[in-house]
């Protein structure tokens, strides 16, 4: 089953009634559903042969958290992997757990809970997985901040330093972080100052 073959099959397929996967640039076949329909859609996918759960990822937007699941089929002939997308509002970040369908979802959902605060209803053991159980907040949310957190500079050192003078309290942890991270950066990246705007245009 090669790449071209998949392409030739057309770029959409109806898995079951009302559930249709379409091809999306960069990530392959996608299925976007409302969060109420997530479990139903996932069940349909499982029945259609998508038996391997690969991951779930949260993406934090100002109002909502988008969830992207990836499932793979070991049985199907084409369209082997699907990205299943849904969205939960930040005010009520709950969604059905997919552990009843794939045991593998267990740790992945715990991870998403740990870092995004999405609550998976029906998960057998929804605890933090990486962070200590008494941790406050969800680090991968864009608005997360705590005393340990530092914002990395991206070549605007002087500007940042000027800003830091105004806010001395915020400056202290930042500088220590710079020292720590300095040896990890290869030299040609550390002094990458040129910003190209047309690089991406060219490649499209």
């Amino acid at each position: 089953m090669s790449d071209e073959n998949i392409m030739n099959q057309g770029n959409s397929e109806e898995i079951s009634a009302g559930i249709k996967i379409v091809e999306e640039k960069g990530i392959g076949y996608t299925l976007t559903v409302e969060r109420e329909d997530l479990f139903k859609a996932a069940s349909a996918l499982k029945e259609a042969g998508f038996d391997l759960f690969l991951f779930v990822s949260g993406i934090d937007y100002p109002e909502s958290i988008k969830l992207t699941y990836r499932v793979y089929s070991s049985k199907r002939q084409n369209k082997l992997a699907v990205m299943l997308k849904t969205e939960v509002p930040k005010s009520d970040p709950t969604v059905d757990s997919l552990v009843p369908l794939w045991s593998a979802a267990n740790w992945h959902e715990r991870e998403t809970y740990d870092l995004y605060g999405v609550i998976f209803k029906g998960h057998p053991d929804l605890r933090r997985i990486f962070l200590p159980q008494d941790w406050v907040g969800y680090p991968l949310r864009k608005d997360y901040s705590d005393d340990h957190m530092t914002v990395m500079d991206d070549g605007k050192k002087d500007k940042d330093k000027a800003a830091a003078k105004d806010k001395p309290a915020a400056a202290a942890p930042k500088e220590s972080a710079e020292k720590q991270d300095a040896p990890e950066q290869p030299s040609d990246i550390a002094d990458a100052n040129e910003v190209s705007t047309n690089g991406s245009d060219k490649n499209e």
Partner: protein
Amino acid sequence: MGLIKMSKLEEMKISNHNLSELEKDLALNGEVESTEDIVTEELAIHFGPQHPSAHGVFHAIFHVKGEVVTKIEPDIGYLHRCFEKIAENRTYTQFIPYTDRMDYVASMTNNWAYCMAVEKLAGIEVPERAEHIRVIVGELQRIASHLVFLSTAGSEAGALTPFVYFFDEREGILTLYEKICGARLTYNYIRIGGVRADAPEGWLDDTLAFVTRLKKRMYDYDRLVLGNYIFKKRFIGVAPFSAEQALDWGLTGPPLRSTGVSYDVRRSDPYSVYPRLEFDVVVKYKGDNYDRACIRSDEIKQSIRIIEQAIEQIPEGPVKADGIAKVFKPAAGEGYGHVESPKGDLGFYVVSDGTTKPYRVKIQGPSFGNLQALPAMSEGTYIGDVVLTLGTLDPVFGEVDR
């Protein structure tokens, strides 16, 4: 004079004031069965995080009854550095060195998967020569990682000598890497749109000589470790997993293929120049520890085949796509790139909002998915077997915790 001092084991159990919740549960639940007159107590052993064979910083509580492990409670996160958050504060190029530090036994494939995701996101075409070099270094990395696996599998089973032999071979690969990119462990070699620099003169010949030598030696190594009577006795039939179980628990890579599921990203979702290369996806069917171990030895042989073909086919030309600046702005969108890393299906899901930094990078580490199956796989086996089973899942905790 009837005062019998409380048994040590019991005392130990009750005085466990390591503040873990799991631990408290254990102490309170009273593991002693009261149906028989004489019972052996169930012990909770802490395995790691500082344990000689914990494969990095892994903590698990083994509940053992005699020598049999009845329950395993894994506890991860000791190496969590939140790379996904760091990625959001780095430019696309700047994040590559961080990927080195995930699966530090196979850094090259991490670079590769990440760069592939960004290339898909930005729609960058990689030149032919760069793709070939990527395949060569990627397969060398697979060999190196599997050699580490074989050596640790041996040493966990008590054979300390094969360990040194395999590390000696791996040394050859690290030397090759040193020649091509200057680093032995964290390479930062594969870049967005290609590789950092062309292979130095004679490097391809050195590589060919190395794999030719290794191919000959693999015969001896197979007999030394996998063919050993005691090794077989320890590995065959231990912790078997069926294909259904493996899929349900989301295994990828060698542990999944050992159950008969032929899922190899190089064939299932072909990338780079793999469609043009001849090799077999190694599949075993019993899914026990021995199959998980053997599959890696066989994959080394397949990797040697791939490297030989790639070196034969490699064209002349540039090794990096034109016009890719160190800092660039891909259009808003999403990209998912995954490769068959030595550990399994390693994927990067990159979301761009049109700025110089990724909006979100999700790392799908195969070790994370594979490690999850450890309790299901090895409950009911002996303590020694659990160590081996953990070894055959071959997790690297830099990747599990990220």
